[in-house]
Each structure stands twice: as C-alpha cells, then as structure tokens.
C-alpha cells in the first residue's frame, strides 16, 4: 500500500470528525444547502449501500491484508462531492446556432439558373438589337446634340445649371465621398427598415436625384442640349 503523508492523514481525520459532528444537524439543514436535494438523496443512498459494499470489500481487503483504506470518508468512500457546478455558469454559451443549408445544391442551383437566364436574355437581345455604329470619327463634324454615355448624362445635365467645376468635379466628387463615408457616418446599428427611416429617405433622394437627371439628360434634351419633349421632337439618345 502506498505510504500516505502524515498531513493528509491528519486532514482526513479532521474532516471525518467534522462530518460526524455535523451529520446530526446536517440532516436538518439539508433544506438550506446549496446542493440540490436529489443529489443529496443520491449521495445518501449511495453511502448506505456503500457500507455493505465496503464491508464486503473490507472483508476481502482484510484477507489480502489492507482493510478500509486509510483516509476514506464516512462509509468507506474515497471521494467526496465537493460542489455542483451548473452547466450554464462556466460554459461560454455561443450565440444561437445559425440556420444553414449546403451551398451545393441550394445556392449553386440558384446561381446557375440566374446565370443561364441572363445569358439567354443577353443572347436574344443581342440577336435582335444591334449596337450603334455611326460614321467614322470626324473632328470637323460635331453632332448636335453631343451627349456623354448615359451614366454621365446626369453630370452633363448639371453642366447646364452650374459652372463646369461644380457640375463636373465638385458635385460628383462629393457624391462619391458621401458614399464612401456612409458606413462611418451612420451610427445606427439596426438593419431593420423601420429603424432606418432617415437613411432610407436620404438614399432614395440621392438615387432619385441622379435618376431624374439622367432621364432628363437622355430623353428631354435635343439639339443644342435644349429642353425638348420626346413625344414631340423625337428621341436624341444613343446607347
């Protein structure tokens, strides 16, 4: 048998004495204990059954030459329930699991169909509608009106109202800077539409502003970039 150090034996003896002294009022105080009742009951049941086992084992151990191990607790137990730690108190609970699906087939199938649809649309559209090709470039013949590509027609429209530096540089520059800074200026952390009425209105105004300018520049500007009505004078617009 392993030699048990002196101080451990002393400590075990002290614990045994304390348990023997406390056992009488422990039964009364069980209600105040922080250990759940069912666990205490289980321990009691185990210790009462354990005596029998310990006696049997003791007999066997005596035969072999040991006896009840020195330092065992009441009832011959060599281990004690120190405390019960409930699972929630020390485990870091991760956030609720996210509902996920396999990319194949759920996402790839959607992407495949979308790609196919766009290819088909582009193919058919290109089959029936030809891209414009006008006369070769001629520096001596300025077409009237001369229009920028459609996505710059908003700027060209601004050019009729402001100095070129404002219309061509300052305003689009400010628009780009505002777009870049949007995530840093918007301190509202919600992504729910009902919480974001202000940003919703700002963006809608921003988009409508450019959309209206582009539409006016595309369809309501004729020769000399003067205002026209497309239903009266026709459309002066090439893609």
């Amino acid at each position: 048998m392993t030699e048990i150090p002196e101080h451990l034996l002393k400590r075990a003896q002290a614990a045994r004495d304390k348990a023997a002294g406390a056992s009488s009022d422990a039964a009364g105080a069980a209600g105040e204990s922080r250990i759940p009742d069912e666990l205490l009951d289980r321990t009691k049941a185990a210790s009462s059954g354990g005596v029998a086992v310990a006696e049997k084992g003791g007999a066997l151990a005596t035969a072999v030459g040991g006896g009840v191990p020195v330092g065992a607790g009441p009832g011959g137990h060599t281990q004690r329930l120190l405390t019960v730690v409930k699972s929630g108190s020390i485990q870091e609970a991760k956030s609720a699991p996210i509902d996920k699906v396999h990319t194949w087939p759920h996402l790839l199938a959607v992407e495949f169909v979308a790609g196919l649809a766009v290819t088909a649309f582009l193919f058919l559209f290109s089959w029936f509608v030809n891209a414009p090709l006008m006369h070769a470039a001629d520096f001596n013949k300025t077409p009237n009106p001369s229009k920028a590509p459609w996505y710059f027609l908003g700027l060209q429209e601004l050019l009729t109202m402001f100095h070129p530096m404002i219309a061509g540089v300052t305003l689009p520059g400010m628009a780009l800077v505002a777009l870049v800074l949007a995530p840093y200026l918007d301190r509202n952390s919600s992504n729910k539409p009902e919480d974001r009425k202000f940003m919703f209105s700002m963006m809608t105004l921003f988009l409508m502003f450019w959309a209206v300018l582009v539409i006016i520049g595309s369809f309501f500007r004729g020769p000399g970039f003067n205002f026209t009505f497309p239903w009266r004078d026709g459309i002066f617009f090439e893609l």
Partner: protein
Amino acid sequence: MAKVLDNPRPTLKERAAKLGGQIQGSQAWNSIFRPGSIFRKGYTDSPRNRSYVIMNSVLYHLHPVKVKRHAVKVSYTLCLGGLSFFLFIILTVTGIFLMFFYRPTGANAWQDIQTLQTSITFGLLVRNMHRWGAHLMVLSVFLHMARVFYHGAYKPPREFNWVIGVVLLTLTLLLSFTGYLLPWDQLALWAVTVGTNMMGYTPVLGSQVRFVLLGGVEIGSDTLLRWYVLHVLMLPFVIVIFMAIHFWRVRKDGGISGPL
C-alpha cells in the same frame, strides 16, 4: 443449347454499362475527378459529398460549404452581385474575341469594327453582346449598391467592404467609359469629348490629368491607344484585384448580411 441460354451474349446496354464502370474506376478518371464529384463512381447525395463538391472544386470553393438559409432566397439579393461578376466574365470572353479583330489606331479602328460586323462570323452578335452586356453590368452594379444600402449591409463589420464596393462601381464606370471610345465612330468621339472636357475642370491637376489620359491636348489616335490599353489590360487587372478582396471580405465578414 442450354449453355447458350445460361450465358447469353451481353446486350449493348450491358456492355456500355461495363465499359462505363471500367472508365469510372480507372486511375486516370479518379485522378481528374476528386472525391465528391458527381462524375465519380458511386456518387451519392450525402452531406459529406455535398461538402466535397464545394471543397474539391477550384471554382466553387469561392463559396463556403454552407450558407445561411435566408441567403439563398432570390428575393433577398436578387442575385445582383453575382450577376455583376457573371457579366464581367461574359464581357471578358466576348472582349477577347473582339480583340482578335481590332487595331487601336485612328486609321484602322472604325474600319475594323465595320469589317467585324459585316464579314466575320458571329462578329456582329459578339459585339452586340459585349456592348449590351457592358450597359447591363453598369446597371446591375448600381442596383447591387442600392440593394446593399437598403439592407443596411454596409454596417459593421462590413464598412470596408462597402468602400471597396464604391471603388468597384467607379472602376466599372471607367471600364465602360474607356470602352465607349474604341469603336471610333462619331458617337464614341463626341461622347468622350464631352466626358473628358468635364475632367479638365478639376482644380489644380485637371489639365495635367486630362493631358495624360488623352495623350495630348485633344482626343486623337494616341488617346485611342491609351484607352485601349486601359480598357483591355490595366482596368481589368485592377478590378480583378478589388473583386478578389471584395469576395474574400464577404466571407471574412461572416457571409452576406441579414436576415432583416
């Protein structure tokens, strides 16, 4: 006679199945199609194989193995980001085709487009697809930006990916604008004249930037060469780098945003 009935000659179908099995079991076949490929012998639709399809494909592993359930709803993204990328691929393919028939010089450019449209098989069709595809891409990138904004997807942790997105929008516009000049017809020349005149009003650097971009004080043959190189080489190179960062950040920032 009985012997013949016990061992009938294998039918064509049986022989084809046997041959198919032999091919699919061969070392060459299995070296090409990695585990999880639907072309491999004994492919079954199991969670393990569904994961392998993504992990073992150089194209698909742009995606994670699993995505949020709400992210596969078409009504959430409208596929706009993916379609912008897909249109970029279509534009690359059709653009390479066009490059075979085009010389970026004042003397040849317009004539080459004319010849492409009239004398080259599918030339007109491919040019149409390139042009309409380009307009469609500008539109889809723009709508993608609006969609992302309205979903509040630019909010932390995705602020920087939004900034990259604005860069991509600008690059898309520049790609479209540089391509606009290349047919070298009246529409191209004067649209670009209007556009670049505005550029000249940039304070301090305006006229210098304009001079560098045009290769002179006015648009000419040198401009054509410059914008051609920008259009087919430099801007695609830059935009591919930014797209790589953009897609990578989408995953690093926790997949697509939402649900609302």
